[in-house]
């Protein structure tokens, strides 16, 4: 027993010299994975509906976003493209601009994600869809959260 005690006494303190290395490693991980938000929301943050049959959006570089929601103090649904509030008619120019930034062969793969507020009108969404059909941007995605659909109706 006495031998044991002696050993314990001689235990050295754990070296913290490698702590900065560990922290740096974590730091680099987060620096690399962080995506800064590209567009600033001009409308109120849309409350997305919930759904169960969802698919993950792959290849984010191929996705362009259309936001639909309300603006504080104003009635009606507003559409935001890039950094400003726009009209339905501007959707086609937005799609053309998006297409310009991609090589020819990726154009059929481009997806438009509609991030619309749960209380928007279907009419607004239909207008957007009609514009998208006019310019042949047919792949769309209704952005939703995963959850019970009954929450949408309350």
């Amino acid at each position, binding site marked *: 027993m006495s031998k044991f005690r002696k050993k314990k006494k001689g235990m050295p303190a754990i070296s*913290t010299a490698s*702590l*900065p290395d560990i*922290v*740096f490693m*974590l*730091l680099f991980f*987060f*620096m690399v*994975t*962080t*995506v*800064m*938000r590209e567009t600033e929301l001009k409308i109120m943050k849309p409350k997305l*509906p919930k*759904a*169960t*049959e*969802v*698919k*993950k*959006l792959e290849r*984010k570089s191929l*996705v362009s976003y259309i936001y*639909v929601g309300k603006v504080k103090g104003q009635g009606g649904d507003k559409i935001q493209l890039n950094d400003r509030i726009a009209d339905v008619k501007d959707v086609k120019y937005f799609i053309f601009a998006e297409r310009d930034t991609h090589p020819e062969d990726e154009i059929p793969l481009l*997806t438009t*994600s509609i991030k*619309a*507020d*749960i*209380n*928007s*009108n*279907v*009419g607004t*969404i*239909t207008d957007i*869809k009609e514009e*998208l*059909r*006019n310019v*042949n941007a*047919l*792949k*769309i*995605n*209704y*952005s*939703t*959260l*995963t959850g019970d*659909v*009954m929450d*949408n*109706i309350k």
Partner: protein
Amino acid sequence: MAKRDLPEINAGSMADIAFLLLIFFLVTTTMDVDTGISRKLPEKQDDVEPPILKEKNVFVVTVNRNNEILVEGDTFMTVDKLREEAVKFIDNGGGFGNPIDGAEPAECDWCEGAKDPESSDHPNKAIISLESDRGTSYGTYIAVQNELVGAYTILRNRLSEKLYGISYTQLLKDNKNRPSESMKEKIANIKAKYPQIISEAEPTK
């Protein structure tokens, strides 16, 4: 001269600085994955005569501006019943389907429905028509869409389970991780047996 007694810089506070940055990035990072219901819009076509359909092959879902759901023009329904009804309709198999690959029109031998002659003939003839109003709320619209897509998922899962012992959802997942020809063939087969035909009418004003 000065070089000689240059003191070493104390690196002890490096960890603190790194921590500070780490916490900043931890807080600003958002690891959200974008999910949603994917749909393909129909191509714009001019002057196309609408095909003649039998009324029994069309399942009409109407959502009005008060977010009430009317099925087949006569039954009010809540969203949670819709999936079940759509499954019943698609899976009915009461007659002969459209010919596949030039073969003779055949009955649906994988359907497990009631074979009611008053309901749809075949999954490849069964059309779900969704009519909405401009004033319908987007939440309800998505809920209805979700239930209709869900009905197809149920049927596809069931068939895939029966044929290959693995659910369709799992099949899609496996195909994404390790794509193979046999898997693609299975997916195409299931898709052909239960094709997703959801038609959206112009909304009423």
